[in-house]
């Protein structure tokens, strides 16, 4: 099998799995318990919290563990918005997001629309970049929250998070507002600088399943002065922000997973990514989706003219290659990728898009075999295609 869908999920690194195992059966205590077994579990999660605080350059108290990226994002957006609304200072509070955010952001915001918020979607250019002047124009005295993803999961666009944070901070200073800035960093965590001070974010979400950690675990960074209403209620764990018995093995795993992230690995993957892009673009009628520069290290997204995405994915699956597509037929909503659609290209491009996302174990030979398989599939599907 040639696995090229790391943006969807990653295998748990064996070194991470090994560290997790004792917490399933030996050290299985509830971190809230008063006896030794419980204290041991509590220590384990605090050690992990320390590692993640170091990874993000923040303090331990600013880290909350959640069930994953989606939950962190929901907590951030719903929590911040509802807290501010309850202060009754705004007529119709505005939330600014981009047109290419992950569904967790989009659908949290849809919920907030029904709660009386206004959601302003910033358009992106044909490479997926947010226009900073558009952002400046969108900020107003009713704005309470801005959420912009660090790196896009479909086309790899890396947004200028530090610049965006500067713009928001300047606006806050000038207008005496307190607009909060959140970033979805789920795709970025493995490859980009996650120093929250340098990024200038107030809230940041990321998860374990994209960085060779377990599924079902995420982090929400919350700057200590930010107030968030919880979305889950219960025993008051995680400083009352996220009730529920902590997933100790997964938290331990996440702590080790972040320690395994390396710059050298990013640099190695970039070269492989560029090799794959170059080879795929040699195929007639192939176009790259997303930018060449400021693109996530492992992301390749190409559309092949006249060839539908799901069909390509199934042909490649038969050849032992795992990848994904932005085609409507492969989505549960039966709508084409909102990300590729937002780039402003013609209608067919989303349906023809294939995404390959490389990983820790990806090698050049695998990519060469992939290119061959793509050529065969494209040729066969073009022969039967009703589109020239």
């Amino acid at each position, binding site marked *: 099998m040639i696995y090229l869908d790391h943006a969807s999920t990653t295998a748990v690194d064996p070194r991470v799995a090994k560290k997790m195992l004792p917490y399933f059966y030996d050290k299985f205590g509830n971190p809230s318990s008063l006896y030794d077994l419980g204290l041991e579990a509590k220590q384990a999660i605090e050690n992990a919290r320390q590692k993640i605080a170091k990874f993000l350059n923040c303090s331990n108290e600013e880290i909350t563990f959640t069930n994953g990226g989606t939950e962190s994002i929901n907590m951030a957006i719903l929590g911040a918005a509802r807290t501010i609304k309850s202060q009754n200072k705004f007529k119709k509070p505005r939330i600014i997001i981009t047109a290419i955010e992950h569904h967790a952001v989009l659908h949290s915001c849809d919920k907030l629309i029904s709660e009386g918020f206004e959601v302003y979607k910033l358009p992106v250019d044909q490479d997926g970049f947010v226009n900073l002047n558009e952002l400046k124009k969108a900020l107003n005295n009713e704005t309470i929250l801005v959420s912009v993803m660090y790196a896009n*999961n479909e086309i790899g666009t890396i947004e200028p998070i530090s610049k965006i944070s500067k713009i928001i901070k300047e606006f806050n200073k000038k207008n005496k507002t307190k607009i909060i800035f959140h970033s979805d960093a789920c795709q970025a965590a493995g490859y980009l600088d996650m120093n929250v001070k340098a990024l200038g974010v107030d809230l940041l979400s990321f998860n374990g399943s994209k960085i060779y950690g377990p599924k079902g675990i995420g982090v929400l960074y919350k700057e200590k002065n930010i107030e968030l209403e919880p979305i889950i209620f219960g025993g008051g764990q995680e400083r009352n922000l996220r009730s529920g018995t902590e997933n100790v093995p997964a938290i331990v795993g996440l702590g080790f997973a972040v320690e395994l992230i390396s710059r050298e690995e990013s640099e190695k993957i970039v070269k492989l990514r560029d090799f794959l892009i170059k080879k795929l673009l040699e195929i007639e009628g192939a176009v790259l989706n997303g930018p060449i520069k400021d693109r996530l290290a492992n992301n390749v997204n190409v559309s092949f003219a006249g060839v*539908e995405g799901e069909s390509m994915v199934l042909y490649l699956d038969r050849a032992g290659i795992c990848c994904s597509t932005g*085609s409507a*037929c*492969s989505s549960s909503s039966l709508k084409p990728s909102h990300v590729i659609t937002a780039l402003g290209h013609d*209608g*067919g491009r*989303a349906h023809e898009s294939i995404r390959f996302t490389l990983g820790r174990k990806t090698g050049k030979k695998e990519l060469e075999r992939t290119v061959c398989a793509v050529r065969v599939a494209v040729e066969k599907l073009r022969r039967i*295609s*009703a589109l020239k």
Partner: protein
Amino acid sequence: MTGEVREITGKKWIYSDIVEEHFFSPKNVMCEGKNEGYNGIGEIGSPDCGDIIKIWLKIDPNTEKILDLKWKTFGCASAIASSSILSTMVIGRTIDDAYKITPLEIIKELGGLPKRKIHCSVLGDQALRVAIDNYKNKKK
């Protein structure tokens, strides 16, 4: 890249064996430059929709039986398999008979489709009717 609910089929593949056969070895595909002598042509769908089916019919003007059907499809596995199986269902039938083919019959021949894929088969019978109408209009 949204997730989807896979129906539990007990198979390694999302689709039936019949769909698999017709998807990877499609029958009656129109070859380049071989579209002479077809007297009913119909096309449905658009790139924006992600599905386009084009059908060429060779109809005997005396018996009004479909002698041959060739097709080309831009679309997912369901759309391609539906086009292919439709071609095998229709050859030899009269146009009046073929006109009545429903999506449900196509799905049945395919051994079933995942629920949310049913719309993909709905195009095949539509394209067939457009092709038959095209033949009838030319006759007038």
